[in-house]
C-alpha cells in the first residue's frame, strides 16, 4: 500500500516516441485507470511501473522509494495480465502461492494464505486443478489472487478483462473493485474501455499519442472534458464549431452557428479564437417551439430529423441553424414526432467550449 509517483517519465524506441514526458501520481489506496486507444502509451506506462521497460528519462518511485533502476522482482508489485499468464505446470494453489514461495514464506503459512485467497475469490473448490481445467473467468480470479497474495505495494492490471465476454466482464469489474477496496491496495488499471474505467476508478487518466490528455474523476472527465479527443472518447457528445466571444458574468460566451451560447471554457481561449462547443446528448431537453426559457439556458430552434430507439433510450436528431444535435431522453418523455418543429434547451453549466 503505497503511492506511485512518475516524474518526467518518457520512453523512446529509437526515433519513435512511445511516451512523452509524464508526471503522474497514484495516491495511496487509489484505483487509477489509464484510458486510451491502442498505441496511446498506457501499456508502456504500466510496464515502466512494473519494471519491464526502463524509461528513457525520468524517475519512478513506489512508496517514496526510487525504483527507476530496480528490477521487477524487487519492486513488491502484483500484476494481472490480459492473457492471465497462469503457470500451466502448477495447480491453482501453487499459482496463487508463487509469490509467497519466492518470498520464503513457510509452507504452512503459504497454505493458510492460499486458502484465504481462494475464499476471497469465492473459488475454494478449484485449489488442486490446473489452469487448463478452469474457465476464463476463474483463471482471471486466480490471477488476481496470485497478484495480491503477499499484499503488494501496488497492483497493476493490464487490460485484464479483454478476453472475457460482456457478462463476465461486468461481474469481474465489481469483483476487482471489491477486492481492491477490501485490501486497500493502490491499483493502476490499463484499459481502452471507457465504461470499464468509469465504473471502477477513483480517477481516470485519459491518454492519446503518448500524452496524458486529462486526469480527473470519472465525473470531471465526463462533465468537463478538456479537449475534443477526451470529449469524444468518453461517452457520446455533440460537437459544433464556432468562435469565442469572451467572458460575461462569470460565464464564457461563444458564437456557434449564429447563436450566442453560454458555457464554461477549457483553459483561457483568446477572444475571436475558434472553439468547439461540446454538450452531452442527455443534457438537452426538447420542448415545444417558442417555449419560454431561462436566461441561463442555451436554445436551438429546429426540426426533428430522425428518432431512434435503443431500448431504454430514445435518440432524437434535431437540426436547426445549420447544426444538428443528438438528444437522448427516456422514451416516455418523447412527445414529438419526426418533422415537428421543436426547441432544444440545455443549461450553460453543462456546455463546454473546447480549444483543442
Amino acid at each position, binding site marked *: 500500500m503505497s503511492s506511485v509517483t512518475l516524474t518526467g517519465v518518457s520512453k523512446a524506441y529509437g526515433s519513435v516516441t512511445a511516451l512523452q514526458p509524464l508526471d503522474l501520481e497514484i495516491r495511496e489506496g487509489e484505483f487509477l485507470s489509464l484510458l486510451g486507444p491502442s498505441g496511446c502509451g498506457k501499456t508502456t506506462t504500466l510496464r515502466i511501473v*512494473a*519494471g*519491464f521497460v526502463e524509461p528513457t528519462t525520468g524517475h519512478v518511485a513506489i512508496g517514496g522509494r526510487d525504483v527507476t533502476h530496480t*528490477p*521487477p*522482482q524487487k*519492486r*513488491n*508489485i*502484483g*500484476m494481472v*495480465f*490480459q*492473457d492471465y*499468464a*497462469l*503457470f*500451466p*505446470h502448477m*495447480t491453482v494453489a501453487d499459482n496463487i502461492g*508463487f*509469490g509467497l514461495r*519466492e*518470498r520464503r514464506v513457510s509452507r504452512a503459512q503459504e497454505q493458510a494464505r492460499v486458502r484465504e485467497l481462494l475464499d476471497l475469490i469465492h473459488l475454494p473448490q478449484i485449489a488442486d486443478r*490446473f489452469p*487448463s481445467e478452469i474457465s476464463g473467468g476463474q483463471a482471471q480470479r486466480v490471477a488476481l489472487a*496470485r*497478484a495480491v*497474495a*503477499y499484499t503488494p505495494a501496488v497492483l*497493476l492490471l493490464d487490460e485484464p478483462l479483454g478476453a472475457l465476454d460482456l457478462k463476465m466482464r461486468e461481474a469481474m469489474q465489481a469483483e476487482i473493485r471489491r477486492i481492491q477496496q477490501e485490501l486497500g491496495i493502490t491499483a493502476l488499471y490499463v484499459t481502452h474501455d471507457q465504461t470499464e474505467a468509469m465504473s471502477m476508478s477513483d480517477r481516470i487518466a485519459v491518454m492519446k499519442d503518448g500524452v496524458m490528455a486529462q486526469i480527473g474523476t470519472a465525473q470531471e472527465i465526463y462533465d468537463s472534458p478538456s479537449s475534443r479527443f477526451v470529449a469524444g472518447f468518453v461517452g457520446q457528445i455533440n460537437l459544433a464549431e464556432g468562435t469565442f466571444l469572451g467572458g460575461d458574468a462569470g460565464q464564457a460566451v461563444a458564437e456557434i452557428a449564429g447563436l450566442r451560447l453560454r458555457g464554461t471554457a477549457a483553459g483561457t481561449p483568446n477572444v475571436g479564437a475558434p472553439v468547439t462547443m461540446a454538450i452531452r446528448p442527455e443534457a438537452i431537453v426538447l420542448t415545444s417551439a417558442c417555449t419560454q426559457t431561462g436566461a441561463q439556458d442555451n436554445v436551438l430552434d429546429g426540426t426533428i430529423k430522425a428518432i431512434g430507439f435503443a431500448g431504454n433510450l430514445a435518440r432524437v436528431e434535431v437540426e436547426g441553424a445549420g447544426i444538428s444535435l443528438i438528444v437522448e431522453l427516456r422514451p416516455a418523455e418523447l412527445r414529438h414526432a419526426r418533422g415537428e418543429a421543436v426547441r432544444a434547451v440545455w443549461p450553460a453549466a453543462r456546455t463546454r467550449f473546447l480549444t483543442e
Partner: protein
Amino acid sequence: MTARWHLLLIVPFVVVFALTAASQFVFIERSLYEQRSFGRVGTELTLINYANFLTDRFYLNILWNTVKVSALATFFTLLLTFPLAYVIARMRSRWASVLIAGVVVSTFVTIVIKVFGLRIIFSSNGAVNRMLISLGITDRPYTIIGTEEGVVIGLMHFTIGFGVLILYSVVQTIPRSLEFAAQVHGASRLRTFWRVILPISLPGLVAAALMIFNMCMGAFTSAALLGGGRVLTLPVLIQRTVMMETKFAFGGALAAILLVCVIAINLLSIFILTRMVSGRRKVLA
C-alpha cells in the same frame, strides 16, 4: 460409394516400406546365419553372431563408447543450444530470422566439409593451438583427431544446428507473459528459469535430447573422420565390418544391436519422463 481412392495410397506405402523396412529386414535376416571367413555365411539359423558380440569385451567396449560419446554430445549440445535458442526466440528484431537462417544453412552443409573445418581449426598450427600455446596453457599442440573429446566435438558439430532449431520452437511456445508474471511476483531471472521456463520446456527438451542422441548413435562421418581409427563407435565398426571385411552377417548383427539399444534407451527415457510428469499430472504431455 466408399472411398476407393484409399487404394491409391498402397503405392506410396509399398515404396516407402521397401526403402525403409525392407533393407533393414534383409540385414537382420542375414545376421541370423553364422558368419564364416571370406564373406561366406552358414545355412542354419543361429544367434552365434549375437553371442560373439555379447561375449567379446572389445565389442562391448565399442558399444559402451558409442553410448558414452553420444550421451556426452547430447548433453553438451543441449547445454549450448538452449541459451542460444532462447535468445533467438526472444529477439524482437529482424536479426532473429537472419540468425535462424544462418543456423539452418550451416546445419545442412555436409558434415564432411564441416569436419574438415574442425580439423583445420584444431590442427597443430591452427587457431586453437596457437592460442593455447601463446597463452602458455600447453606447450605441445593438442589434437582432437583420434580422441574421445574429438569425437564428442565432431558429433556436437553435427547436431548443434538441429538442437537450436528444435529448442527454438520449444521456447517460442512459452508465452513471454509467463516470464513477466514470474518476475513481477518476485522471482529473479535464475528462479524464473528454474521454476517456469525449465519445467514447461521439459517435454520439448526430452524430445530434443532423444532426437540428438539418436542422431549421434547413428552418426558415421564425424565419428570416422575424427576418431581417426583410434576411437571406434558402432557405426564406424559396422562400416569396417561390412565394407573392409565383407562380413555381412556379422555387420547385420551389429546393426540390429545398435537398433535395439537405441529403441530401448528411447523407451526407457519416455517411461521415466511420463513417471516424472504423472507425479505432477498430465498437463505437460
